[in-house]
């Protein structure tokens, strides 16, 4: 399964956000999208998922144009993990995750034993099976994020698009999600995620795309793309990129007042 964007222009009707974005993602790869607030990450994701029509270029899934696929065909290929939201109704975490099975159900069907088993397995993978019967609206933001990732696993699509999956998480849960992303990639999932933290790209990504003002500044391996000069150009302050003795790479912004 391969997701490709070719010369993609994206945005809202009458309000273009970005253009000329070309990306590719295959099985087992993790593509990390980095960029400042307002650089167009969420809009790009919505276009990759077909939730917004492409304004130019094309999104391809296995060389087939996304716009020719029905919603259910897209949903069995790409799962979407939206930014943590508050639901309007207090579904249980279990119900929320089971909704990931919808693309595998007939139009008039409701989830059966196999779907409930898939939902429970996804909850167990994320380590939140004990929250199954809690109200989705009452668990913490981090737990909601984990539930949304579990829903994507229950959806059983080979590609997963995650919009800032670590945004609302504490330090420990961020690490948990990054570890889970690596584990999923090792199982063969292709994952696109956006983040505000370049360290996360070093921690889990096989490729990085740096987005600034709706244009791709650079794509490639994290260590090639995330140079101090580029990070300074995009984020507007000096950044040191340090390799730690353990093999990890961290990005440290210069906090001294000019």
């Amino acid at each position, binding site marked *: 399964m391969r997701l490709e964007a070719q010369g993609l222009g994206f945005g809202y009707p009458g309000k273009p956000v970005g253009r000329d974005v070309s990306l590719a993602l295959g099985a087992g790869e993790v593509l990390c999208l980095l960029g400042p607030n307002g650089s167009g990450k969420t809009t790009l994701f*919505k276009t990759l*998922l*077909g*939730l917004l029509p492409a304004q130019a270029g094309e999104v391809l899934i296995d060389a087939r144009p996304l716009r020719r696929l*029905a*919603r*259910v065909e*897209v*949903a*069995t290929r*790409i*799962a*979407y993990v*939206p930014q943590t939201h508050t*639901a*309007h*109704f*207090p*579904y*249980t975490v279990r*119900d929320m995750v089971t*909704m*990931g099975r*919808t*693309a595998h*159900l007939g*139009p*008039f*069907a*409701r*989830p059966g034993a196999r779907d409930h088993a898939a939902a429970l397995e996804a909850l167990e993978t994320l380590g939140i099976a004990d929250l199954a019967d809690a109200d989705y*609206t009452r668990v913490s933001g981090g737990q909601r994020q984990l539930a949304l990732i579990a829903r994507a696993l229950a*959806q059983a699509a080979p590609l997963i698009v995650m919009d800032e999956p670590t945004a609302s998480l504490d330090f420990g849960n961020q690490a948990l999600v990054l570890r889970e992303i690596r584990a999923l990639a090792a199982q063969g999932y292709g994952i696109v995620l956006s983040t505000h933290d370049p360290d996360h790209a070093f921690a889990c990504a096989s490729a990085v795309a740096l987005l600034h003002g709706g244009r791709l500044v650079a794509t490639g391996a994290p260590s090639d793309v995330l140079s101090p000069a580029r990070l300074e150009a995009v984020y507007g302050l000096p950044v040191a990129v340090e390799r730690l003795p353990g093999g990890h790479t961290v990005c440290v912004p210069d906090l001294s007042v000019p």
Partner: protein
Amino acid sequence: MDGATRDTVLFFVRLPRVGAAMLVGAALAAAGAAYQGLFRNPLVSPDILGVSAGAGLGAVLGIFLSLPVLGIQLLAFVVGLGTVGLVLLIASSVRGREPVLVLVLAGVVVGALAGSAVSLLKVLADPYDQLPAITFWLLGSLAAVKLEDLATTLPVTVLGLIPLVLLRWRINVLSLGDEEAKALGIEAGRLRVVVVAAATLMTASVVSIAGIIGWVGLIMPHMARMVVGPNFDRLLPAAMILGAGYLLVVDTMARSMAVVETPLGILTAFVGAPVFLWLLARGRYGWT
């Protein structure tokens, strides 16, 4: 009272009325539950979206034109559906503001518009024959329901219920919002149209025999959600049972409380409005 009279009263006066109360209550509650899920908003209901007012206008127009019951129902459905369409059109063209607020305000405005059209028809109506019928009907009442009315309304209401039952799982998914529903594999726009049409058909068909009975479609789904949770699978039957039981009790009160029969719509508002305030005051906006 001899046996024959007693039978007549039981089978042709009391039973149709009991059946009508339960049918109207169940249909309004089912439509309310569907609208609330669909618009992701526990505040919407057939009343607030202007469906009741629109269907009421259609039905009043039908009475004004001296149409048969089926004609009144059809007109109620068409105008009711037109009203929802207009409300949704206004809400979607006023972008970039609080969408829920715009939706509710659009419903209030369109409902008021339908109300003034009703007033115009009242002025034009025959003051000795049509006007009393229209006025009493607008207050909401089951006093005039005959067995034949029930026989024509029940199939139409069931016709509206079938899609809601068949699509009950997908209505859950749709309540997450269009984008998420699409990403989960649902043609959200198409499903929304089907569910709105089904819920409006249910509302219009019961409005055409019972008049405008407010609050049932707003309060009963809340109550049901407190008991069984928001999963539409369980919410739909629970809301319908509660709605049927509630309207049966209120109609019995309307019939027997005073020497003169109290219009049903007045009683449901007397009970419904305080309950809704209580839900608001619980601080969670009645989301539970």
